[in-house]
């Protein structure tokens, strides 16, 4: 049976291209937020804030494109799954963009007031979140269900590392690491809020990989347990209590 490219295929290709543009825009936002954290550069913060409006516009455009395709073409099978996944992914991407803004907004203050020991932890979490996001986008770009599932499975380990980093942050803020507290309360609060934003970036990056799996295989693995903790990062508040996984 020969296949041909229909008008619907062209529209789906445009939708995919737009999604990848949004992925790239969010990546740029994360890059700038990271640079702002590391270097305390106000121009990078400004770039993140300006870029967020463009990300929001992309969200609305993709939303409109997906609705139009559903209304006019009634796609089925892989095409339907792709459009449904696009509608879900666009929410995650927009929220990752918002979290990048949240981090960027605190970056200058943290850079100025949070001592190096605390900044190292925030930067470590930032690097991990960016790496996971980049992997999830690559998995989506390749449409690779196996790699999407691998990312989901490996996230168990990633979330444990994150919890340990958060535990170190909590120990640091409580002065449990043996040092005299050298941070101000507002710096401590913003450090925790930045950590929470980075935690959310990780979680939403996993969602993107889950949507890639859904597109390829038609199975929703969002709530399928893959480990003792269900394959999802434990809530951030665990880091403030007992029962934190040990290295």
């Amino acid at each position, binding site marked *: 049976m020969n296949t041909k490219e229909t008008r619907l295929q062209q529209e789906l290709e445009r939708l995919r291209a737009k999604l990848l543009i949004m992925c790239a825009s969010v990546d740029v936002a994360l890059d700038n937020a990271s640079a702002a954290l590391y270097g305390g550069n106000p121009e990078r913060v400004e770039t993140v804030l300006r870029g967020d409006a463009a990300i929001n516009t992309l969200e609305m455009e993709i939303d409109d494109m997906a609705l139009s395709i559903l209304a006019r073409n009634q796609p*089925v099978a892989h095409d339907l799954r792709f459009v449904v996944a696009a509608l879900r992914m666009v929410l995650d991407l927009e929220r990752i963009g918002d979290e990048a803004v949240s981090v960027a907004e605190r970056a200058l203050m943290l850079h100025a007031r949070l001592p190096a020991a605390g900044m190292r932890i925030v930067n470590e979490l930032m690097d991990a979140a960016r790496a996971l996001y980049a992997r999830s986008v690559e998995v989506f770009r390749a449409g690779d269900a196996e790699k999407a599932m691998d990312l989901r499975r490996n996230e168990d380990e990633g979330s444990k590392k994150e919890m340990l980093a958060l535990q170190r942050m909590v120990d640091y803020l409580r002065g449990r690491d043996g040092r005299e507290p050298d941070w101000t309360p507002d710096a401590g609060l913003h450090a925790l809020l930045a950590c929470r934003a980075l935690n959310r970036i990780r979680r939403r990056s996993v969602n993107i990989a889950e949507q890639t799996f859904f597109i390829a295989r038609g199975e929703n693995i969002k709530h399928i347990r893959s480990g003792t903790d269900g394959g999802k990062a434990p809530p951030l508040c665990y880091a403030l209590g007992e029962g934190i996984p040990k290295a």
Partner: protein
Amino acid sequence: MSHSGIPVKLSARGLNFFYGRHQALFDVNLDFPEYRITALIGPSGCGKSTFLRCLNRMNDLIPGARAQGEILLNGENINDRRTDVVSLRRRVGMVFQKPNPFPKSVFENVAYGLRVNGMTKKAEISDKVEESLRRAAIFEEIKDRLHKSALSLSGGQQQRLCIARALAVDPQVLLMDEPASALDPIATQKIEESMHELKARLTIIIVTHNMQQAARVSDGTAFFYMGKLVESGETEGIFTRPRLKQTEDYITGRFG
């Protein structure tokens, strides 16, 4: 029993069909669960209408046509020489692409089959006509025009009248060959709604070129290509996660 545990009403077993020397169907095996709507889909010339007409031996009317294999209705092979074809077509009714009412009154169109089958009492016939028109979801629209010519009805009303005519003789299975392809969206919706009501008492098999219609109305879908049954299964699965690339290419319009 079908795979889903629902009793099988009609079943094709190793069905081959020939128009003279041309083979139109190749070893088709397919079950039709009772009280379910099954859609037959596939490109033009794939054999789906031929297959549909095999199910009540409509193809017997074509010179040189012959079938091999079994079609089991309630477990009995209808391809058996001893099968009473008139009785078969009463049990397996059919609605065609274009509405084809008799040039008679609305009432007589529905009453015709009843009289042919020996019903003589006027009150019984009248009750049955009304019941059939109600089941086809057309009675309320035309109850004041029962004795007007059926040809005065709109296309959509004529098609529902033909459905009522088929229902009057209490078939167990209703075959529908693109029943809404000549109708506007409102008439199409009425036909689809009536199909949904009818399946409580009937097994329905529909041939359609409209993928959205197949997805909307059917419980099961079978995809035919070049005389072969390629894939069949639950409609939801076929339209969201087809197993085979051929099916995916067809339903997504990539087929060409």
